[in-house]
């Protein structure tokens, strides 16, 4: 700081030594805890060379796992989206009794271990579950099949988009919507042309995080999946399968794919924050 060059230090800042120590601690901690594991994934994935890497990724079971993961995300994310928008509309635009209760209930999946999230669906749809006999009588497979995986993923990712939109929409208030209504717009028109443009970057951000979580869910899915290679293994489960097969390079190759997805998510998120910071009022509201 200019004043420091003259030997003066602002009363509300620390000595340079303190500052740089803290910065070093912070950077070293982040490197050790966050960056190193990430780097490790990529180094291990490519440790046997590029051809082995691509061979691992084009393995039949890995490709099937990719398909299943995409399918699960393609269904879970829109469901979370519709729910999130509806819940955010109800909570942000209206005053009603029980609003805190609703918000707390929405946050519930965050406090539930993913393993429990899978377990509850086994209790509902498994062979000895509430609906088990009915399902097997009608030859409908939920547990040990894709539908079970999708349901468990929806449970885990349920609050993501809602939690992103609620503070944002609350901050933005309802004056614009009220103005639109009083000018004669219908509810749907108001939503489409007034609300949506205001929340679109928050929405995109929420969708990104939701998608990353949906594709990466492990605990809940491992409980409901039959671990059938080529059928009910998602990418994270495939990582474990390859690991158990002693195929570490393969496991890390698949892991690197998901790590890449995480990096892309972070990059887009940073871009959004950089350019649209004011429209992401609650971006740090995790």
């Amino acid at each position, binding site marked *: 700081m200019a004043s420091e060059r003259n030997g003066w230090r602002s009363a509300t800042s620390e000595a340079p030594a303190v500052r740089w120590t803290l910065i070093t601690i912070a950077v070293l901690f982040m490197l050790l805890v966050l960056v190193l594991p990430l780097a490790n994934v990529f180094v291990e994935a490519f440790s046997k060379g590029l051809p082995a890497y691509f061979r691992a990724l084009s393995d039949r079971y890995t490709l*099937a796992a990719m*398909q*299943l993961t*995409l*399918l699960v*995300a*393609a*269904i879970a*994310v*829109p469901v979370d*989206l519709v729910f999130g928008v509806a819940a955010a509309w109800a909570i942000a635009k209206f005053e009603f009794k029980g609003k805190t209760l609703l918000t707390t209930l929405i946050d519930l999946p965050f406090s539930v271990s993913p393993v429990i999230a899978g377990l509850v669906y086994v209790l509902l749809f*498994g*062979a*000895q579950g509430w609906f088990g006999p009915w399902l*097997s009588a009608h*030859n409908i*497979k939920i*547990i*040990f099949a*894709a539908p079970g995986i999708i349901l468990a993923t929806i449970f885990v990712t349920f609050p993501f988009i809602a939690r992103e939109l609620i503070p944002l929409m609350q901050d933005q208030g309802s004056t614009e919507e009220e103005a639109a209504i009083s000018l004669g717009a219908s509810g749907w028109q108001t939503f*489409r*042309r007034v609300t*949506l*443009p205001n929340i*679109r970057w928050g*929405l*995109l951000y929420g*969708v990104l995080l939701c998608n990353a979580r949906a594709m990466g869910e492990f605990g809940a899915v491992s409980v409901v999946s*039959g*671990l*059938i*290679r*080529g*059928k009910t293994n998602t990418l994270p489960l495939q990582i474990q399968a390859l690991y*158990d*097969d*002693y195929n570490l390079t393969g496991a890390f190759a698949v892991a690197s794919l998901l790590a890449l997805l995480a990096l892309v998510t972070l990059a887009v998120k940073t871009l959004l924050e950089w350019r649209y910071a004011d429209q992401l009022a609650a971006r740090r509201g995790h």
Partner: protein
Amino acid sequence: MRTTTRLLALGAVLATFGLGGITPAAADNQHLLNVSYDATREFYQDYDQAFTDYWQKKTGNTVTIDQSHGGSGSQAQAVISGLDADVVTLAVASDIDAVAKAGLLSQDWQKSLPDGSTPYTSTIVFLVRKGNPKGIHDFGDLVRDGVQVITPNPKTSGAARWGYLAAWAWAEQKYGGDRQKVEAYIRALYQHVPVLDTGSRGSTITFAQKGIGDVLLSWENEAYLAIDQFGADQFDIVVPPLSIRADPPVTVVDKNVAAHGSAALARAYLQYLYSPEGQTLAARHHYRPAHPELVTDRSLIAAFPKIKLVTIDDPIFGGWAKVQAEQFGDGGIFDQIYKPAN
């Protein structure tokens, strides 16, 4: 608006792709699901490829085979709970008996294929650290002070039950059939076990990769595989003087193949295990083939050490039905004696 519409459209497109790939055709009889136990991953990887080639040459059809692996007991329960297996290739006959009891296949399943539906056998050996630093040579050494034994959970794993029974057989011999002393030995043995993985592969990883324990009670084939994987400079195989002949049987799940229309394919798949190619592949993966005479490479057969083996039908055991109920059932001997080491 545009963003949301685009996202939804993308989702729909992906869903279509996904659905196209995941949903099997209704009357798909060129597909099999083989639900197997934990140690057979590598074997069936090779075998499935060989069978696919064979079937292609024989009938011109392309068959896809999916595999699921896990502890034998858990896999059996999964099949009962709706896992859509066409064939089960499990580690112990009583697990398949359980599936039969649930009505998914005939109670006489063991007669449907030669050799009691057991195309290959194995046994239980010790995998130790290189140089055998703790000097483990027999089952008696497992309960010495400071020895940590790795073995899976008998409730979920077939290997665990075979290992348990091998130890039981040794104790019967050592203590002249004194039931009290035998049970005391087994109790002591499991006090030396720090962790029970759910399947044999989990135990091998715990021992070989995580470096926990001094000795692994392992399938013979799994021990050789560990040496192949981690290096002969890491481990030694110690063959106890007396062990048990482990019979991992295979069978078709009648109810499911009837629903899928894959009965003929499933039967052919299992019968191929008895062919020269099938038996040679088994030997190559360190399984003892039921018909060693069919294996052309004699060195594979010679590599198997000669061990004195008891079988499950030995008088001390009396067959799987008796053993499963008495030893491993709810409230059975294992439940009574198992107190994990604190």
